[in-house]
């Protein structure tokens, strides 16, 4: 008797009691379905977290100036400017693990087109900013170092600003806007990024060169100090920690801080925050997968239970088969393959159910739908293993039946 014939035999035996087969496989179906859905949910969550962090800029560090102290009241980080333009230049050019660095000075202002106006956030910065914060251009170009040095009155608009000043779909490159009272020529429009997880609109921004910002937008300038944060991009993900240390050391040196002095600035590693987020979603998926694995094992116990019942019910059939020449191994194979078939079919149905659930959830939460064929195959393979492990005992019991007793069994 070959494998194919045994398989046909198993399928027919399972089809004979459809309800029982389905109920028996239900444990496996739920188990595999849960594994697939959980992994997809975990991956989807991870991908959406990754997307948020990617949109903020990759391998990002933030240098916040130190806290102020007036009377006994301590201000938070950023309340006291301690980072100078020279510090920025030093970080930009002297640290090998840093790819780029740019200031971010913010001010809210009323912006006017010819017939509309809009209150938005003006960011004064340098050329590096666009690469460091992962901004790409939808129209035109961003300003250059030359524009910055010259204090050119040029601006790059976020999509939301364009929508509100000119209407959707308009290309404003070449138009003149006024910020407060100063006219600026629009050089470019950034590609939309959407909202941050807390609902802040990344695209509701106007970018102008730092020098121009200091002269035209900011009410008062602090001269050598940068009134805002500095964004730093490390060369690679592996080097963010090194960049963080290098930048810290450089600034401590430049600020002439002694060994016992505390930093008068703070360098934050956003990659660390991101990887922390990743880790927590990974831990969650691992936990869910473990629960799913437990339900697979429970499903296996269900299979063993029903196979034992089935062996008892079919004692006579076994007796007949043995009488006409089935060897113990033929009987073993018959019942083992029956259990295996049940488990694998359950696994396949479960995979389909799991993918369906994952798709539904992905649509619900707006996550990317991640199909993981490797996980599906692994889950089906594991359910097959469960089938073999839990089918072995009943099948062995069947194969060791004494034919004389089996034929007499009522």
């Amino acid at each position: 008797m070959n494998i194919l014939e045994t398989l046909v035999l198993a399928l027919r035996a399972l089809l004979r009691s459809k309800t029982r087969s389905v109920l028996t496989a239900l444990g496996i179906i739920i188990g595999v379905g849960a594994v697939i859905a959980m992994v997809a949910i975990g991956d989807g969550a991870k991908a959406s977290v990754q997307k948020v962090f990617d949109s903020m800029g990759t391998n990002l560090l933030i240098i916040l100036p130190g806290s102020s102290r007036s009377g006994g009241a301590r201000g938070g980080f950023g309340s006291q400017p301690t980072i100078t333009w020279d510090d920025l230049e030093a970080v930009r050019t002297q640290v090998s693990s840093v790819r780029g660095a740019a200031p971010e000075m913010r001010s809210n202002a009323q912006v006017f087109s010819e017939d509309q106006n809009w209150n938005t956030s003006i960011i004064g910065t340098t050329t590096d900013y666009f690469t460091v914060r992962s901004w790409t251009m939808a129209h035109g170009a961003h300003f250059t170092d030359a524009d910055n040095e010259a204090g050119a009155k040029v601006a790059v608009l976020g999509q939301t600003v364009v929508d509100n000043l000119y209407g959707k779909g308009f290309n404003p490159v070449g138009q003149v806007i006024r910020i407060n009272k100063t006219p600026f020529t629009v050089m470019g429009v950034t590609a939309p990024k959407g909202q941050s997880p807390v609902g802040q609109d990344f695209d509701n921004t106007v970018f102008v060169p730092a020098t121009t910002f200091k002269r035209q937008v900011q009410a008062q300038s602090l001269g050598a100090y940068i009134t805002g944060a500095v964004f730093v991009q490390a060369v690679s993900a592996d080097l963010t920690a090194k960049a963080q240390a290098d930048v810290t050391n450089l600034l401590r040196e430049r600020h002439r801080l002694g060994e016992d002095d505390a930093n008068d600035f703070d360098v934050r590693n956003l990659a660390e925050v991101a990887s922390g987020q990743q880790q927590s979603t990974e831990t969650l998926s691992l936990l869910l997968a473990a629960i799913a694995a437990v339900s697979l094992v429970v499903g296996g116990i269900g299979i063993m239970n029903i196979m034992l019942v089935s062996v008892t019910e079919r004692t006579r059939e076994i007796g007949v088969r043995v009488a006409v020449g089935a060897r113990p191994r033929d009987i073993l194979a018959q019942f083992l393959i029956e259990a295996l078939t049940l488990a694998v079919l359950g696994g396949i149905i479960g995979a389909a159910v799991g993918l369906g659930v994952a798709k539904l959830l992905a649509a619900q939460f707006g996550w990317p739908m991640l199909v993981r064929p490797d996980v599906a195959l692994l889950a089906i393979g594991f359910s097959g293993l469960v089938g073999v492990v839990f089918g072995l005992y009943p099948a062995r019991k069947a194969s060791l039946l004494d034919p004389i007793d089996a034929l007499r069994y009522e």
Partner: protein
Amino acid sequence: MDADTKRAPPVIQLKNVAKVYRSGDVEVRALRGVDFTVEPGEFVSIMGSSGSGKSTLMNILGCLDRPTSGEYLLNGREVARLDRDGLARVRNRTLGFVFQSFNLLARTTALENVELPMLYAGVPSKERRARAKEALERVGLGARLDHHPKQLSGGQQQRVAIARALVGRPRVILADEPTGNLDSRTTVEVMALFQQLQKEGMTLVLVTHEPDVAEYTQRIVVVKDGRIVNDRRQTPNPAVVPAEEVGT
């Protein structure tokens, strides 16, 4: 081969076969030294009351059980000491079984029931089908290939079982109370079929406790207390089925 010149060996040859069952301290001696020979083409019935040892004898003849001592030559070959796989092979290739309660697989067609022994002999499916069909035609059920046991009468079911016993081309058919669950008319039908098979050269051994049934056979062996106490040959009573009802 010199099979034509030499006399063929006995199909079954038991030499001083004993079977002892032990359950705890109690020993039950089911067979106490049986010598028994069946020549090719014989139609033998084994009779005995319950507890006489005839079932044990049948189980040993059928290679479902092994004797505690003694020799069993089946078709000239020692089979008393074979392992489970070896016994399975002998049952598959050399023996055909017919049971009192038919023992057909439920929800399985007549044809597939008859194919069963060949499944374990590794016969290819096309040949299996053809041979099963032929065997069913031989027992007069050529028109019921796709019927399930439930759709067949007792007599028909037993004939399917006989077809299943025949299909592996065994050297001997062993029938254990084959008419025990049949009424008197179908009993005659089944016995007529056995007599027909014997005429075609088949060797048959049948266990029964009904003297009427034994009368249809050529030789009656009586077992009592684990021994053969009587062994006589006779002219069998011809099993005649009323003509208009043949074939159901």
